[in-house]
């Protein structure tokens, strides 16, 4: 019995150092862990106790098209297209 404890603890322990090498703490395990409590009211799920369930905060960007002509890639592309136009 105790052997298995040792083996399993060993297994856990040897994973630890690898995890610690990684800069992000959250990267260590891809396993969806069991929750420490079984149930909770919806209020405890909400960020900062906000009234609605996160929908109030702006979480997603729907409009992200880039119209910034000064951005590097756009600038280079425009110059290149101009060059070609001039040569025609």
């Amino acid at each position, binding site marked *: 019995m*105790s052997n298995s404890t040792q083996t399993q603890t060993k297994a856990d322990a040897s994973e630890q150092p690898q995890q610690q090498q990684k800069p992000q703490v*959250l990267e260590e395990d891809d396993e969806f862990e069991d929750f420490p409590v079984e149930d909770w009211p919806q209020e405890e799920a909400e960020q900062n106790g906000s009234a609605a*369930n*996160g929908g109030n905060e702006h979480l997603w960007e729907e409009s992200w098209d880039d119209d910034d002509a000064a951005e590097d890639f756009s600038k280079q592309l425009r110059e290149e297209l101009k060059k070609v136009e001039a040569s025609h």
Partner: protein
Amino acid sequence: MASQPPILDEFLGGIAVQIQNRDGAKLQDLLQIEPPLSEAYQRLIQELRQRYPPGPQSDSDLLQRCEALIPRTKGGSSWTAFPTFMKLYFTFLRDVNTDNLLDTYNQLKALLNQCVLALGDSQMGVVVLPTVLYLSKVLAKLAMGLDRRPELIAHILRMEGSMDNDESIEKVTLVEQSANVVREAFIKCLTDRTGTPGPQGKPEGKRVGIYLMANLCLKLLFQCGKLRNAEQMFASITAQSPPLAHFPASQRVTYLYYLGRYLFSNNLFYPALIALQAAYDQCHRQAISQRHLILAYLIPCNIIMGRFPSRKLLQRPEANGLTDKFEQLCRLIVRGDYIAFREYLSPSSPAAEWFARKGILLTIRNRCEIMVWRSFCRKVFIHSGFHGDPQAQAQRGPPPYLYLEKLTVATRWLQSQHRQAQLSNGVNHATPDFHFYGSQVIPEPIDPDFKGLDGSEIPTAQQLLEKFGDYLAPDGFFDEGGHWHENMPGRLIDGNPGADYDAFELDPYAEATEDGPEADKQSLLMDEVESILASLLTQGLMRGYLTHRNPRFAIPGARVRGALPTGFPNIWETIFAREKDDDSVPGWVRPPPPGALGAAGGGRVVNLSGARPVGVQ
């Protein structure tokens, strides 16, 4: 030792009491197996070894003692599976040898199997539900531990010679075997007929275990990569489970997480988004690691549907570790540089490794590139398209358009930019300047089968034979009548391949025209650009039409809204408009709508529809 009272008697007495009280939790508490075991269990093991040493006689004696545990029913079927389980429990304690973890695993699995059989009893089964869950968790932990550290049992497998057995039999990993046992328990829970079963019902009897068992099974199936096996589970849940809302938050969130991931990997992005968003919304705000994992799938799901994570979201603590990966991905989609996008997700990139570990690399690569092309086309249109004549508000003016030639020019420019960057970095990915075979936009090395075909020389028969000998001169062949003929070594089945060899037969893409190679080069790329645009138009990610003869992308009906918003509509809005009418999520049982018959649980309304358009307050 002899002076101590027999602990086995005491232990069996305790078990009998819990059976009589139908107290499953206390029963489970008694049935410990996981080390470290307390002093009392050590004494129990000692006693078992002394009084019931391994052997058929003591096993049957033990069984007899365990049979006294269950209430006798008059003439009715008695719960025979339970005494057998108890006997196995005792022999497990007595015999387990953790030097051989494979044996331990198999014994534990047998024990769980027997417990699941005991669970099947319609009257008493529910009493062992907590024990089934407990044993399942221990088995899952052991199986997943051994899966991560195969060297712990490699020597045993080698000794038993079970590693090189019949290749034709599919090997079932320990994790998958465990999933199969847990699934049996899940089915027993789901099909319990106590009280009101089905979607109108409540979690009563064994049904309280539906999602506990399902979640454990899903964890194992994800671990062993057998997602397909989950399909039947989700279908049975849809058909027979009470609404998920009746179950505790921890079970709901865990289940919606796995369901969302399953739907995501089946390319059902909108249902996946709803499930994952609901998991995120219901997850306890302090459960950072779980929220982190949910986000790791919720974010790509949204990106694929055209919605990017906001700064606010990425600044949340649970987004730590996700931010840089997804921010860069979004940046590349916005920029429209498809080569940089491909490089970011190519096998050599560290980010790709991360995406692959999460199991989302291929989905992202396949689904997002089209958005990169949309951004690229949009930018080319901004800089060199005809945007319509603002003066000529009159009806006659032509609609805004873009010559596709500009796109091919821009593509070639992009390719040359990257080639230069590679050369200056000392990297040479062997990207040929130009080739007639394969894609014109993908700068990857040519498929080896097409290598060398660019040369003007037609390969000789000898060369062909060297390369394709296994096909041209096989060991034998079937004739028209279906009869097998042996072939002489080296004899060409279809005659000399060089005799009627036509170089162009091997070219799946284009034929040389009279316009000369320069024009052909151009038309090859043009064909591909047209296909990409056609795909964008079909998906509704761009709006307008293509003309083929004088290749253009035209944007009619742009007078009111303007050329850009008309020709390049918002991706999220487009996809959401298409999907929003059906917000059902396969595998997620929701309470029947109010007013539907038998709405007994209608008092408890839980808002589960996490998917609402952003900005709606």
